[in-house]
């Protein structure tokens, strides 16, 4: 049970970072922390006591395998996370070019 709580704490750590950090790069890193806590959680719920990697062995097909579906979900989610992070970094570089800063307090053109 403790590992699940640790996952949740990691998620909250990332959320704390997103809310309190002022540097755009640190916000992006905090988002990645949140993302990886989700992946860790998904991988953990697929684990079974004493399970092996889910590749069917023709010689001995009846074994305890870990659940492969969460692993497939993690792979898909990693691809999506890659796209999100790349997009965010591209926007941050463009913002640095226009505003000349990474500080989120300086970036306040839109108000109201």
């Amino acid at each position: 049970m403790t590992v699940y709580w640790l996952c949740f704490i990691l998620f909250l750590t990332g959320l704390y970072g997103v809310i309190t950090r002022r540097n755009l790069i640190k916000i992006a890193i905090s988002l990645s922390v949140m993302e990886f806590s989700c992946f860790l959680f998904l991988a953990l719920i697929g684990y079974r006591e004493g399970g092996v990697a889910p590749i069917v062995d023709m010689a001995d097909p009846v074994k305890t395998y870990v659940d492969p579906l969460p692993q497939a979900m993690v792979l898909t989610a990693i691809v999506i996370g890659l796209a999100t992070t790349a997009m965010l970094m591209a926007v941050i570089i463009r913002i640095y070019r226009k505003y000349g800063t990474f500080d989120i307090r300086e970036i306040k053109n839109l108000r109201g």
Partner: protein
Amino acid sequence: MMNPLIPLLVAVPLAGAFLIMILGRFITGVPRIMALATLLLLAFISFWLLITGGAASSVYTLGGWEPVDGVPIGLYLIHDGFSALVLCIISLIGLLSVIYSISYMARYTSENYFYSLFCLMIAGMNGVVLSGDIFNIFVFLEISVISSYALVAFGVEKNELEATLKYQVLGAVASFMILFAIGFIYWSAKTLNIADIRVVFGEGGQGPHYILIQILLLTGFGLKAAIIPFHAWLPDAHSSAPSPISAMLSGVLIKAVGIYVIIRLFFNMFEITVGMAILITTLGALSMAAGVFLAIGQWDIKRLLAYHSISQMGYVIMSVGIGMILMARGIRSEVAALAITGGIFHMLNHAAFKGLLFLNAGAIEYSAGTRDLREMGGLARSMPFTSATSLAASLSISGIPPFNGFFSKLIIIVAAVMGRFYLLAALAALVSIITLASFMKFQRYAFYNTEPGKIQKEIREVPLPMLLSMVTLALICLLLSLLALPGIRETVLSPATDILMDQMKYSSQITGM
């Protein structure tokens, strides 16, 4: 025999997006034609499915993986009364936005990237609406929102970049909440298929995280739908994007990936509980009231329209929530059906008139070069078509007959009164009056001001493709009010309501029990 048109709804825009990127490098002018052809084909397919499918829902299993012992394996695409309507508005508003973009996007560069991202966004939304599998909803949602992040930033100026940064950070937090909730669902239900999850939850296998899952999903999709405590990104993102994209975001995206999924999950996946229904109704009423009060003080046209989007989405959520409360208590099911019908009807209407209003705002910006209401004046003389269509849309959003907004608001208020939610009915009427006031301000400052505005240059009417899509949408605003007539309402809106009211029907058609 499964209908082969259903997977094409996702495959055609995907193929269009990649073909545009390949051919657009070698031949100029191809991207807009390809995008137009893709959207025409999509509109044709979705309306064909709406007309021929009718009330029946059809299930498509990818790869032909049949259920084993009533447990669905593989990926499911489900086309029923509710998703048919949303698919139609996606392709219709998408088609008109592409026609509009032909002239509007001429002053931007990288035409092929624009149309390619546009097709990807459409593919993602169609996938979200069709998918019968909670993880695939997440995947398609990410496809559509990541392309919308890029489209919001398309101008690559200071404002656009700041807006897209806010949108991306909040959108990413929402996505991870949804992913976490999917993990919890898989933990307690050991399945990802929405219909199968419903069966497992119905048999008492709800697990200890049931409330947590609901709250996480409501927060995640609420962030995508910009319900009021989670609305901070919407005015910036929707006002900074190019106008056809604003029309798509406000008119379709927040419905397809936000409201649609919330309604689908809370009706067809979870069992409706009174507490959750009251929470949803409260959030809806709150965003309805707060959105309109935030809109009053705006002088930037697109920000004003964006805040009205929050308010109008509040109507939809509140009315669906009233239906949920009545269904959870098990009383007056005909009033619940009326409330849900009103909500869905208002969702369709909002797509039409808010799309039109954003296109009007884009036309004003195109001709006059400003978005500030205080700098305009007397545009009714120089831009007669824009003025007339925006008047139609303004009357429609403020609920003046014979436009469509009147009928859906009437249904919502009548349902609230019949369900004895007198306070909510009064609030809905009050918000409608304030909306009218806000749009009278818009009309007066932009079009009917007699004193000349501060703009020095000569203002002309916008080019033909832009006019064409605006006039078509204004006609659609009028035609949609026909849906309120008794005969037509039964054939178009009732199948959508039935699939939501009859909770086990959605599951039984897939698991075969």
